[in-house]
């Protein structure tokens, strides 16, 4: 009786196709990745079930944490124009070089008087604790009000759209600090804001 021959298949598989797929994915992720911007004021936002995306353009983000307020406006052109308007208001002249550098700074929190030195710093120095003390927002010297107003003007001028204002508050922040900022905005008749939150799974009903 002839023996049944068990056919042995080799375990070596051709990896070329797999390699192709992996490189394709890798290329895709490299190209779509946006580096996470380091923030000078780290806050952990509260979570909510709202599903409203924070607009990428025509938006200003006010970061509130540790009793301090930081400001950021979207778009490099808008940032430059905002700085120009701020310079006019506070009688400070910024060179084109400084404006260009400022347009690369995302969130910041210093009084306008020391903004020049902040612009001159490199990115790592700006992030050091104690360098940025927050934007003054009290009634004597309300620079936050001016920043928001000028950013709104700049956005309207350049994009012809109304600027939205997002408030990114730390979950542990006490409400009076948030109220102070909201009151500044309401003085400018801005009654609608976005509160930046983490998304949270919706409760099943």
């Amino acid at each position, binding site marked *: 009786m002839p023996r049944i021959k068990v056919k042995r298949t080799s375990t070596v598989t051709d990896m070329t196709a797999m390699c192709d797929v992996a490189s394709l994915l890798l290329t895709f992720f490299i190209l779509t990745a946006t580096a996470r911007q380091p923030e000078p004021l780290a806050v952990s936002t509260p*979570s*909510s079930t709202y599903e409203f*995306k924070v607009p990428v353009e025509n938006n200003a983000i006010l970061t509130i944490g540790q009793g301090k307020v930081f400001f950021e406006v979207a778009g490099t052109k808008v940032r430059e124009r905002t700085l120009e308007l701020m310079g006019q208001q506070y009688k400070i002249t910024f060179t084109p070089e400084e404006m260009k550098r400022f347009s690369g700074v995302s969130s910041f929190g210093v009084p306008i008087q020391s903004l020049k030195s902040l612009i001159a710093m490199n990115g790592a120095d700006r992030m050091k604790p104690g360098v940025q003390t927050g934007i003054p927002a009290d009634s004597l010297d309300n620079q936050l009000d001016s920043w928001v107003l000028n950013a709104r003007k700049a956005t309207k001028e350049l994009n012809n759209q109304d600027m939205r204002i997002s408030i990114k508050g730390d979950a542990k922040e006490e409400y*009076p600090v948030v109220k102070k900022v909201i009151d500044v905005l*309401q003085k400018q*008749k801005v*009654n*609608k804001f976005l*509160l930046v*939150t983490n998304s949270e799974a919706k409760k099943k009903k």
Partner: protein
Amino acid sequence: MAELNTGGKKATPRVDMTPMVDLMFLLVTFFILTTVISTPQAMDITKPDKNEKLPENRLELKATKTMTVLLGKNNKIAWYMGEAGKSAPTIESFSDIEKTIDENRTKANNSGVAGEFTVLVKPTSGSTFQNFVDMMDELEIMKVNSRQIDDDNILDNEKAFMKERGIL
């Protein structure tokens, strides 16, 4: 002439791709994990206009259909129905408020008084930003469409009650 025998057939230029695939997937994983997948979410909030001279800024509320929610210290809530001072507020935690709102809404809707059930949220100086966002989120989940935020007019008797109970 003697030929160099290399085994008779040409060696196929086959390279073992396994380590390369390993490396590729490692990098893919790294990039997946470091990419910011979603843009941050936001909550849309509208506050009442501060200009009290305009008559359209004054909204009349029905006492039987209005629930006032005071956000206090230590994640506590004090709530009451109707006018301030007429009924003693109840102190609750955030986990129970959902049920309470639901009960009050049913009661208000069955009362036969015209108008919509309104929740008036009053964040006091003792509350945190988290409390405020949680409360607004709760109202959104509960689909309470008529909700107002008032952080300016916290009445004296409300303050007194909250102080007495240690949540302000």
